[in-house]
């Protein structure tokens, strides 16, 4: 599997971390995301699982998780980093229709803009929620203050 990934994504992969035989993390540049996702989802036929967003101290990190069910239950996660000054990235809704909801959620809870998303509006929080309060950011306390 690692060899296949290296071959298909040769110039996109910046770093590979093999946690164990079933968990692989590939670091890529955010501008290569669409191409990498397309190769893994369409060409290699992986199953889209979900996207995780994390607030690190000096950047935001997005992990796109894909599962290769029949090839040993391997999960390949694409890691991209986004700078805090301008948090935005291209939306993948054209490629994976099912990704629409999680992109809305990440926009709402972490404040990352998804360019090209057809319907970026509040999903989980109230319509009149404070626009500058992103609950999942590290500066925000658990109770929202």
């Amino acid at each position, binding site marked *: 599997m690692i060899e296949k990934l290296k071959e298909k994504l040769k110039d996109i992969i910046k770093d590979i971390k093999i946690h164990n035989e079933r968990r692989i993390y590939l670091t890529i540049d955010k501008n290569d995301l669409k191409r990498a996702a397309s190769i893994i989802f369409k060409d290699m036929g992986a199953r889209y699982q979900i996207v995780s967003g994390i607030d690190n101290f000096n950047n935001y990190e997005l992990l796109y998780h894909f599962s290769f069910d029949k090839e040993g239950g391997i999960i390949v996660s694409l890691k991209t980093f986004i700078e805090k000054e301008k948090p935005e990235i291209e939306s993948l809704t054209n490629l994976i229709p099912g990704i629409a909801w999680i992109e809305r959620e990440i926009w709402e809870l972490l404040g990352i803009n998804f360019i090209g998303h057809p319907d970026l509006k509040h999903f989980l*929080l*109230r319509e009149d929620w404070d626009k500058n309060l992103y*609950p999942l950011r590290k500066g*925000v306390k*658990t*109770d*929202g203050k």
Partner: protein
Amino acid sequence: MDLKLKALKKSLWVYHVSSGSCNNCDIEILDLLTPRFDVERFGIILAGSPRHADVLLCTGIVNKKCVERVKEVYEQTPKPCVVVAVGACACSGGIFRDGYQMAGPLDKIIPVHVYIPGCPPKPEAIIAGIVKFLKELK
């Protein structure tokens, strides 16, 4: 007022309000209808609308998105009515007490008359809670 409360004791129409719960309490409430507990033989029936309800069974922390709805349901229920907070979440917020979606445990939003703690409270506990309250009414 007393006359109405006495009338309440005959047959209770119950309306269930769920506002941000994990559904376990809701399922235990539905369980009351099933053959094992079968509260319908006591005349306790689930109402389709708060306008027919005598008792409001409320579960869940009150989510910020749900606050207006809970208040509206309470306004629509004809008084006197009994508000029962079922489960740890409705009583005090439970394990979600510190979250950012918490609009306060139920008694900050509407007046509560009966608290039935538990996570979830067993159907027997829910019945016991309601029966205890009815005895207090005497």
